[in-house]
């Protein structure tokens, strides 16, 4: 087996045993990127030189007895997490030449453990999209089928992991942006509870919804990565001060005593029959593992998309006001007045989807419309959280599909924003409620496209998600199937 094919846990084992060095592993990933990324188009920047230096440093740390969680493991980073001295573009012209003077807390944590940063990966512009097609530099392709979307907005993260360019990646999830691409690319992606992982150094999209999380090839690797990045950070005022458990202790066989809820609203109209069949099979597997399966209801599910596209756009219109051409980012140098500079800078620096969302958000917050749109949406959000709280009185974890369909062709939904928004219907409620959600590979469509299964749990119960996800993965026994990318 080539080193680049190893999972994080496998690589860790070999690194500790001394049969593999981080330099060999890193070089193997770099060679793999060189060989396949021309087709996959996941990486915006590959940091070969720095990565190899970090690998050598990790090998030295190991000689001195250092066995930190991710020491020597090469990873890719979504291009909205600040990396000191390395461009962080957010997939946008606006930040094409932005080189952050500091590291995001999660990047600092990875580096502190001796992880190797291979490079930055593509994403929808400012994380606004479901296919990564709004990235202005390149559009990643699904490693399972050329010409198909890898999902979004963390499409580069998912594609890089699925194409075996790296064993793990950090992404961010505002309405499904980790779980949806993980599902479409056949890997594991977890959106942690709001507040579990510091967002300092994450370029903000919608601050009450954004959360950083890992994408990896299996559940064990996801737990290892979440261990590495979670915890309180005084630099993020929404970060929650509490002890974080070792998620690997949740990876045990058997689900006796656990109740899994099936929300019937997630199995309604528009759900592809193949996706439904995969999730139903997953439910059987969990029952066999000892879980009790019960029916639950989340009655406001049908309103989540409307709430999300008001709250997310309102917050985005405010967050993106900072791109004014003054202190960093793109500036239209021909403008003569200040107002002209603002307008031309923003009109030339932002793409169509970003402008659309800024306009919706500005409208929803503007005088005379605030109560009808933003306040109303925030009130319905309270009702949605209430639905989840009631469901979690009856069960420990919810099971559902992640995306209503397998991956679609690049360009297929690009002209219809509302159709694109509606494809997020099954993932955005977790962001609205702030609860954790994970996508686990569940099977394949007849066309060979991956289909994921989503698990959602109460606030800060990632441990329950990992336990159920681990049993699901084991029970499904999907032998490691990998896309044939050459």
């Amino acid at each position: 087996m080539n080193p680049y094919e190893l999972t994080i846990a496998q690589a860790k084992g070999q690194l500790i045993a001394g049969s593999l060095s981080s330099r060999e592993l890193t070089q193997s990933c770099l060679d793999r990127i060189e060989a396949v990324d021309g087709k996959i188009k996941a990486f915006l920047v590959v940091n070969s030189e720095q990565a190899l230096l970090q690998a050598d440093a990790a090998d030295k740390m190991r000689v001195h007895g250092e066995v930190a969680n991710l020491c020597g493991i090469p990873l890719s980073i979504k291009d909205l997490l600040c990396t000191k001295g390395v461009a962080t573009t957010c997939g946008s012209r606006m930040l094409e030449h932005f080189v952050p003077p500091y590291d995001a807390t999660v990047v600092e944590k990875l580096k502190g453990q001796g992880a190797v940063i291979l490079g930055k990966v593509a994403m929808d512009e400012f994380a606004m999209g479901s296919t990564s097609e709004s990235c202005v530099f390149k559009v990643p392709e699904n490693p399972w089928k050329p010409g198909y979307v890898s999902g979004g907005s963390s499409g580069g993260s998912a594609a890089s992991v699925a194409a075996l360019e790296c064993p793990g990646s950090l992404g961010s999830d505002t309405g499904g942006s980790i779980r949806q691409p993980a599902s479409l690319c056949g890997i594991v992606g977890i959106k942690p509870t709001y507040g579990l992982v510091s967002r300092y150094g994450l370029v903000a999209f919608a601050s009450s919804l954004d959360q950083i999380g890992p994408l990896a090839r299996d559940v064990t690797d996801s737990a290892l990565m979440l261990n590495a990045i979670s915890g309180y950070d005084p630099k993020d005022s929404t970060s929650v001060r509490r002890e974080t458990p070792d998620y690997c202790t949740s990876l045990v066989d058997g689900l006796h005593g656990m109740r899994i809820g099936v929300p019937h609203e997630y199995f309604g109209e528009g759900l592809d029959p193949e996706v439904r069949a995969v999730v139903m099979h997953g439910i059987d597997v969990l029952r066999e593992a000892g879980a009790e399966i019960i029916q639950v209801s989340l009655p406001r599910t049908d309103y989540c998309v409307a709430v999300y596209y008001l709250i997310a756009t309102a917050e985005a219109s405010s967050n993106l006001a900072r791109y004014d051409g003054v202190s960093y980012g793109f500036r239209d140098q021909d403008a003569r007045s200040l107002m002209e500079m603002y307008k031309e800078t923003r009109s030339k620096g932002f793409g169509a989807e970003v402008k659309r969302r800024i306009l919706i958000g500005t409208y929803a917050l503007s005088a005379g419309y605030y109560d009808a749109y933003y306040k109303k949406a925030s009130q319905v959000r309270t009702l949605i959280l209430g639905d989840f709280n009631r469901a979690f009185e009856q069960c420990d974890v919810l099971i559902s599909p992640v995306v209503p369909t397998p991956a679609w062709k690049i360009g297929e939904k690009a002209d219809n924003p509302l159709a694109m928004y509606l494809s997020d219907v099954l993932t955005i409620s977790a962001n609205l409620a702030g609860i954790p959600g994970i996508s686990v590979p569940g099977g394949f469509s007849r066309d060979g496209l991956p289909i994921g299964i989503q698990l959602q749990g109460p606030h800060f119960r990632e441990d329950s998600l990992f336990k159920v996800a681990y049993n699901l993965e084991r029970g499904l026994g999907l032998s490691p199937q990998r896309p044939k990318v050459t």
Partner: protein
Amino acid sequence: MAITKEEVERVAHLARLHLSEQELVTMTSQLDTILSYVTKLNELDTVGVQPMTHAFSVSNAFREDHVLDSLVREEALANSPCQNGETFVVPKII
């Protein structure tokens, strides 16, 4: 119509965006579709419901008042599209 072309133009000004005539037409039609869709929220009675601001309530996040290192000026200016070594430079305001 949930939104008119004139309203989109007004909102674009508030958002400091300049839209071409073509963009204005497309955006008006797309915003109209989206804003018509979200009116479905009116089906729900929300009288007396507290609006939710954060998913997990954290009351005042204070920290100790210690002086820590901050960015040096050179680093803070390094990404500016126009600066003179001391300050950001913008077109004349007054």
